[in-house]
């Protein structure tokens, strides 16, 4: 089966864009990705598109209406916060299968500020059966780690200090400001131990990628700028008796194990990681879930600066979801855009020198219904 490559990838500048729609942002990102690859909408064989929050939006059709209605198939993908990365995986599978050779993947979101409120059926349970808000759920997952390993509020807060620092080097990030540790810990408490500066920013944004089969990359003469998808893995959380704590860890561990096996590499081979820091508490859990350190060692890893710019294995150099922003359906593609920048040596001041292999991770959580995770390993071709 053909290897699959990313030949163009980019994102809109994440932030609040009052006049934009999910579609207009998706069109902007799609053109950026098409131009990055130097191909035309007329060359595309299919579109994989994802959007969660705009009611009635069929993003793939909407995008084609704006860039070229060539009659190609549209696939609409929905997988919580892993929507964008699942679009990439579905396109990867179709190219592997030989069905398509050149595909546009795009995710876009137009978001409200503040805590995302999920609709309830029957009795409203918020505040009665504990809390179902995302900051609370990820706080509970973090405190479960604290119970087992003694992880501290300060260690969780250091994630926000690091990722906000990284974002100061990323012109496409929403927040570009230093946030010292005392400021992070003294910020408005949302759900202990997550303060406001430890919660991802709901922003408007889109990201898009052009995927191609090996034959198409050769034909287009794009191998010198291509990114090889060494692994594309997707898992849902398996049954667990303690599902009141959703299977964010188990889904990630499964996806990571699949991805490392598929790529034939291990965490020690990676040059950088973009992982799903929807909340500061989550980032430390994923150090262990992705095998960047042993179980219980995540607190020490952040203390030692190993995951900071210039460290042993830099994590979230883009600023992560905490500061780059988290437009849900775009996130999975935007994470890969950051990895691609480094693999191509185009990441500017935050460049990881000589980066060859990067990992992009996403979690999608749907309340009690469960959790999903994607892990992609990308390599400079």
């Amino acid at each position, binding site marked *: 089966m053909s290897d699959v490559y990313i030949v163009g990838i980019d994102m809109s500048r994440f932030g609040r864009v009052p006049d934009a729609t999910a579609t207009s942002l998706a069109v902007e990102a799609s053109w950026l990705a098409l131009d990055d690859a130097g191909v035309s909408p007329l060359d595309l064989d299919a579109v994989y598109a994802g959007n969660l929050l705009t009611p009635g939006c069929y993003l793939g059709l909407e995008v084609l209406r704006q860039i070229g209605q060539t009659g190609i198939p549209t696939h609409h993908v929905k997988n919580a916060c892993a929507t964008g990365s699942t679009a990439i995986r579905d396109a990867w599978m179709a190219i592997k299968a030989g069905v398509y050779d050149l595909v546009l993947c795009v995710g876009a979101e137009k978001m409200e500020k503040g*805590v995302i*409120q999920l609709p309830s059926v*029957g*009795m*409203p*349970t*918020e*505040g*009665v*059966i*504990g*809390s179902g*808000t995302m*900051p*609370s*759920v990820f*706080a*509970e*997952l973090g*405190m*479960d780690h*604290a*119970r087992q390993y003694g992880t501290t*509020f300060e260690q969780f807060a250091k994630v926000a200090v690091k990722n906000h620092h990284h974002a100061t080097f990323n012109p496409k990030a929403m927040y570009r400001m230093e946030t010292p540790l005392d400021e992070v810990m003294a910020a*408005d*408490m*949302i*759900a*202990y*131990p*997550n303060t406001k500066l430890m919660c991802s920013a709901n922003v408007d944004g889109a990201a898009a990628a052009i995927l191609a089969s090996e034959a198409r990359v050769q034909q287009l003469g794009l191998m010198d700028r291509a990114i090889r998808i060494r692994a594309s893995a997707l898992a849902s959380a398996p*049954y667990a*008796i*303690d*599902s*009141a*704590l959703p299977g964010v860890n188990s889904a990630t561990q499964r996806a990571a194990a699949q991805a490392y096996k598929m790529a034939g590499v291990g965490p020690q081979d990676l040059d950088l990681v973009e992982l799903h820091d929807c909340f500061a508490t989550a980032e430390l859990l994923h150090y262990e879930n992705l095998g960047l350190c042993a179980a219980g060692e995540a607190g020490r890893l952040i203390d030692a600066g190993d995951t900071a710019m210039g460290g042993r294995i830099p994590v979230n150099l883009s600023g992560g979801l905490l500061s780059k922003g988290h437009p849900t359906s775009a996130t999975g593609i935007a994470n890969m855009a950051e990895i691609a920048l480094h693999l191509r040596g185009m990441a500017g001041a935050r460049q990881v020198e000589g980066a060859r292999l990067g990992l992009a991770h996403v979690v999608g959580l749907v309340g009690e219904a469960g959790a999903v995770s994607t892990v992609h390993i990308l390599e400079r071709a």
Partner: protein
Amino acid sequence: MSEIFVPGVPGLAFDDHHMPYLQGARCTACDARFPSTRQSCAACGQRRSMEAWRLPTEGTLRSYSIVHRSYPGIAVPFVSAIISLAGGLALKGRLEGVAPTPEALVFGLPVNIIFSPTDHRDTQGNRYMAYHFQPVQSV
């Protein structure tokens, strides 16, 4: 006429004496446990293997969050707790009777599951019954 209560959360049921309890499910094929009913077993895939199972009424504090920002109209702060029940099952609920501070919230704290009517009513005007957690009182 006594007031009619209806289950406000999945799994909440009433026994023959109208006393509320939490009814989970157990798989007769693989012994997997679930905190509420399932159509078939999510652990082993067996059909027609689910039987009702009454959850314990006490547990210990496994994890928590102190919620300072919730949906509009919900009083804060409050403690959203995850408790461990015998056998490893976890249950989420509101923990009352403990100050909402990290210092007061000690992992392993023994708690009871207490059933109480909520302020919410269904479309027929019946009050929803729910539960919360309370520390086990030492005598």
